[in-house]
C-alpha cells in the first residue's frame, strides 16, 4: 500500500511538472519576442559636428516568424539628416538565437540651442498568428553648442616645396631676362603727345610748301582735322562751322582760338571745294590758326601737369 502510495505521488509529481512546462510554453506573447532599443552617441555636440543616432531591434526565436517593415524617417527638430546605414547581427546565447537589426542615422545640427529626435515607430507582423505591433523609440534631446574651429595642421613640407619651386622659377626667369637684355638693344617707351606729333608733321609740310603750295594746304587741312579728331574727338568733315565752334566751346577752348580755327576751316573749304587758288597768305593764315591751337593745347597740358 505504501509502495502504491509512493508510486502515485511520483506519477502525480511528474504529471504536475509536465503541466507546468506546458503552462511556461504558453507564456510566449502573441506578438512574438521583439524589443527595441534606441540611443544617441552624445547628449551635446558642437554645431559643426555630426550626431549618431542608433535604433536596434532585438528579435529572439525564428527570424522567419517576423515580417518587419522599414522604419519611418525620424521627425527632427533643429537637426538635419545627412546619412543612414543598416546592418544585421546574429548571436546565440543559452541555446537561443538572437537577431539584432541595427539602424543608424547621422544628423548635423542646424543652429545653436536644443535639438530633438522625436519618437518614431517600427511596425512588424508576427507571422504565426498574423498579429501586428508597433515599436516606438524614445525621445532624445541634444544640446547644440557653438562650432569648434579646429586649427589645421601646417603642412610645412608642402610650403617649403612651393617656396623652393618658386625660387627656382624666379632664378630661371632672371637669368633668361638678363641674357635677353644683353642681346636686345635697349627699348624705351616713348610717348608722343598729339601736339608733338602735329608739330613734327607741320614742319615737314612747311618745308615742302614752296614746291607745291596746294598740296601743302591740303596737308595742313588733314593735319588740323586729325589733331582735332585725336584731341577732342570732333570730326570736322561731318559738321559745319557753326557746329564746330559750338563743340570747341564745349571743350573749353577760348573764343579767339575758336574763331581762328573756324576761319581756317572756312578758308580750307573754299580752297578745296570752291576752286579758289591757294595763295601764300592762305597758307600763312592756316598755319597761324594751327599754331594758335597748338600753343593753347600745350599751355593747358602744362597747367594740368603742374596741378
Amino acid at each position, binding site marked *: 500500500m505504501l509502495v502504491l502510495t509512493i508510486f502515485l505521488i511520483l506519477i502525480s509529481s511528474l504529471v504536475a511538472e509536465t503541466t507546468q512546462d506546458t503552462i511556461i510554453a504558453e507564456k510566449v506573447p502573441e506578438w512574438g519576442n521583439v524589443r527595441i532599443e534606441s540611443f544617441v552617441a552624445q547628449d551635446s555636440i558642437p554645431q559643426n559636428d555630426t550626431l549618431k543616432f542608433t535604433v536596434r531591434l532585438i528579435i529572439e526565436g525564428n527570424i522567419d516568424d517576423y515580417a518587419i517593415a522599414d522604419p519611418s524617417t525620424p521627425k527632427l527638430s533643429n537637426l538635419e539628416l545627412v546619412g543612414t546605414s543598416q546592418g544585421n547581427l546574429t548571436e546565440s546565447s543559452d541555446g537561443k538565437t538572437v537577431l539584432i537589426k541595427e539602424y543608424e542615422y547621422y544628423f548635423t545640427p542646424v543652429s545653436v540651442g536644443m535639438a530633438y529626435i522625436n519618437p518614431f515607430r517600427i511596425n512588424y507582423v508576427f507571422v504565426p498568428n498574423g498579429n501586428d505591433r508597433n515599436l516606438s523609440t524614445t525621445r532624445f534631446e541634444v544640446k547644440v553648442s557653438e562650432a569648434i574651429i579646429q586649427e589645421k595642421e601646417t603642412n610645412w613640407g608642402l610650403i617649403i616645396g612651393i617656396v623652393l619651386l618658386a625660387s627656382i622659377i624666379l632664378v630661371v626667369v632672371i637669368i633668361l631676362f638678363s641674357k635677353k637684355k644683353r642681346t636686345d638693344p635697349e627699348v624705351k617707351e616713348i610717348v608722343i603727345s598729339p601736339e608733338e606729333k602735329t608739330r613734327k608733321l607741320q614742319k615737314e609740310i612747311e618745308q615742302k610748301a614752296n614746291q607745291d603750295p596746294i598740296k601743302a594746304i591740303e596737308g595742313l587741312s588733314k593735319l588740323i582735322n586729325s589733331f582735332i579728331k585725336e584731341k577732342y574727338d570732333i570730326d570736322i*568733315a561731318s559738321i559745319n562751322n557753326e557746329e564746330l565752334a559750338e563743340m570747341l566751346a564745349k571743350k573749353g577752348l577760348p573764343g579767339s582760338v575758336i574763331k581762328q580755327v573756324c576761319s581756317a576751316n572756312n578758308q580750307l*573749304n*573754299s580752297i578745296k*571745294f*570752291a*576752286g*579758289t587758288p591757294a595763295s601764300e597768305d592762305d597758307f600763312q593764315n592756316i598755319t597761324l590758326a594751327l599754331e594758335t591751337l597748338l600753343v593753347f593745347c600745350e599751355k593747358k597740358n602744362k597747367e594740368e601737369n603742374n596741378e
Partner: protein
Amino acid sequence: MNEEIEKLNKRIEEESKFIEEVRNEISKVIVGQKYLIDRLLLGLLANGHILLEGVPGLAKTLAVSTLADIIDADFQRIQFTPDLLPADLIGTLVYNQSESSFFTKKGPIFANIILADEINRAPAKVQSALLEAMQERQVTISENSFKLPEPFMVLATQNPIEQQGTYPLPEAQVDRFLMKVIVNYPKKEEERDIIRLHGHFDPPTANKVVTKENINRARQVIRDIYVDDKIDTYILDLVFATRNPAHYGLDDIDELISYGASPRASLNLRVCGQAQAFLNHRGYVTPEDIRTIAMDVLRHRVIVTYEAEAEEITSEEIIRRILGAVEVP
C-alpha cells in the same frame, strides 16, 4: 576766293533772304521740328518731292500746310483712302448736257503744293497715278495732256504703325521721292512750348512771305552753285558703296544689301548738296553738305536683304556704316 564764287555768294545772299523769313514765320506756328522744316525747304529748293514718315500727331500736316501758307501758292490736301480712284486725284472728263460736250474737270493734283496724306492707304493704281504725275510733272486726261503748275511739290506722309490694310509703296516708286524724312517726337521743352502755343482757341497763323518767283529764282541760283570734282567723286563713292560695299572695306555689309542706290540717288545727292549749300548761304558744296542730306536721300533707296531684316539691321545703319567708311575729301 575766286571771282565767280564771290559773285555767286552775293547772288545767294540776295536770293536766300526769304529763307530766314520763312523760318521765322514757320516758327510762329511750329515749335521745334527744325530738321523737318529744313528738309521741306530743301525739297522745295531742289525741286523734289518728299516722303514723310512719322507717327500721328507730330505736326507733319501742320508743317506742310504752314509752308503752303507762307508761300503764295495753291495748296491741296488729299487724304488717301482705299476707295480713292485715280480720277479723284488727277481729274476726269465730265459731260456738259447743255452744250452736249465733255469738258475736263481737273483734280486736286493741279496745285503747287500737294499733301498726300497717308499715301500707303490708297491702292496701287492711285499711287501710280500720283507718282507718275510727280515724275512727268504733267497729267493726261483722256487725250489731253496738262502741265502741272510750277512750283510743284508733293509731300506724302505715311504712318509707320497700323500697317493693316495698307498698300506699301513699291521700291521703284519710292525712288521717285527726293528724300524720305523720318519725323521724330519733339524734345520735352519743345513740347512744353507746343502746349502753351496751341493751348488756346485761336491757333497761330503764318503770313505769306514768299512768292513763286522767289522759289523759281532760288532754284536757278542753286543750279549754279559750284560742285567740285572732289565732291562729285565723294557722291559717287557713297552711292557705289551701297552697290559694292566690299570695294570700300565693308565686306561685312555686302550680304545685307539687296539693291543699292540708283543713279537717281547720285543726282539727288548732288542737287540736295547744292540746296544745302544755298541754305548755308555758300556758293560751293562741301562734303559736310553731302553728309547732312545723305541719310534722307539714301535711306529709301538702299534695300536690305531678308538676312538683314532678320537681324533687324536697317538701311539707316548700313548708310551710317558707309558714311563712316568712305573717305571724306
